[in-house]
């Protein structure tokens, strides 16, 4: 009996030791365009505000977590194209070259954000300057795979679900009819999960992606709040940004902020009719990504 109690105490001690997140870098790469310089594509109102708010919020979260913050902001707004505020006619090659040039370690966090148009069918981003310029999801994923670190993608564009490769190990509980979400329940996943659970399709790219819509849906330039994209508005609030006062804040409860905390919070807080028409999609893995730790 004594030996059993000792064994249980050892087990409980091992289990209760909380791992500490190593402090490294948080790198925020954001591409946002209102298409004021790009002919042939409909202009958008909210991407510049999306980028500004996200960069402010992520910077404050990274700093509070004790991590070094770095940002690369590719912006098209008010007829100008800038990188970190400096005028430059940037292209998708500049974006990919920036990614490749990053010096990162395994525990660094790279957050990639895109707010702009997405192409029907491919889900390609349209970062301009010409209306034919495209950044394809496969190009972005393959480039991200070349660098160390954990990658988190926040994509606010139409057809962005193309970025969620079906390589996750888990089966979703969402069901769609005519491109609209009709239910989200564990019961929906039970039968489809049988095949997926015993196949070997899973692939770990160390990329956790969260998109504004499926591969067949549009996303919205604004919905609840005219200042931000519909998806980005709920993403900002989930991260702790005060959208009323337009101020970056630290969430009150502290602790860890993980990728699936954000996914769950966005899905819960989004109005049902918005979520039905533009259903946020996430990479489905049993391992969660710890974004910030206080």
């Amino acid at each position, binding site marked *: 009996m004594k030996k*059993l109690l000792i064994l*249980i105490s050892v*087990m409980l001690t*091992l*289990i209760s*030791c*909380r*791992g*500490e*997140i*190593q402090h490294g870098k948080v790198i925020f790469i954001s591409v946002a365009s209102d298409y004021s310089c790009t002919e042939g594509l409909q202009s958008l109102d909210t991407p510049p505000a999306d980028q500004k708010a996200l960069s402010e919020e992520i910077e404050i979260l990274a700093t509070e977590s004790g991590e070094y913050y770095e940002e690369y902001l590719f912006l098209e707004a008010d007829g100008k194209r800038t990188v970190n505020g400096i005028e430059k006619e940037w292209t998708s090659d500049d974006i990919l070259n920036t990614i490749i040039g990053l010096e990162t370690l*395994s*525990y660094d*966090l790279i957050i990639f954000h895109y707010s702009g148009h997405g192409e029907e069918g491919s889900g390609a981003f349209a970062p301009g300057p010409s209306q034919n310029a495209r950044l394809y999801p496969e190009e972005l994923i393959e480039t991200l795979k070349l660098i160390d670190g*954990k990658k988190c993608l926040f994509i606010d564009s139409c057809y962005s679900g193309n970025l969620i490769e079906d390589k*996750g*190990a*888990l*089966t*979703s*509980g*969402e069901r769609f009819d005519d491109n609209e979400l009709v239910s*989200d329940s*564990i019961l929906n*996943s*039970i039968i489809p*999960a*049988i095949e*997926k*659970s*015993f196949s*070997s399709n*899973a*692939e*770990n790219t*160390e990329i956790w992606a969260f998109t504004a819509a499926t591969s067949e849906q549009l996303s919205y330039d604004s919905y609840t709040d005219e200042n931000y994209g519909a998806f980005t508005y709920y993403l900002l609030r989930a991260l702790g940004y005060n959208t009323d006062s337009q101020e970056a804040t630290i969430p009150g409860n502290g602790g*860890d902020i*993980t990728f*699936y*905390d954000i*996914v*769950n919070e966005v*899905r819960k807080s989004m109005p049902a009719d918005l979520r039905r028409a533009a259903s946020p999609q*996430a990479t*489905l*893995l*049993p*391992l*969660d*990504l*710890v974004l910030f*730790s206080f």
Partner: protein
Amino acid sequence: MKRVILILTLLTTSIVYAGVSWNPSIGVNASYSATDFSKALDRTGSIWSSTFLEAEANPLAMKINHHEFSLPFSIGYRPSSDINDRMQMADSFTASLSLRYGFHISEKFLIEGGGGVRYRWYHKASGGSWSIGGNLSALFFPLDFMAISIPLTLYYGGNALDFTAGIGLRFVLGGGK
């Protein structure tokens, strides 16, 4: 139809006279859980540890002399793991069904083994996966209606190998242990 009824009647009578007793039970377990994900999902090659809490209901357990056959159903919860390389195994709920055989070594000791299926639901991600596996338990009955158990399980599915080892309590509700 008449033949079917006759056969069933004879079978039931035989079972009753063979000393079969209905032996339902309920139980709870607290275990150490260790998960090894495939390289496809986890490059670190780490073992992800957590606790695992499980409650079991066994309404269809039948005892014939020293032998016991049952179909227990259980639900469980596994909290999230420690942080490792900026990752954390997410918390999940489980539901399991297994087929189990037990042998009463003596009045006080029972050894059980079985196999079954488990469904695991990661609620924040809103996604799930199946696994199949086996279980082995040793039980000691300090009282006629109550046992202390040492359960071990091993399940594979969803690119993960899950192992648990713990301690539990089982309460026998039926005629005899």
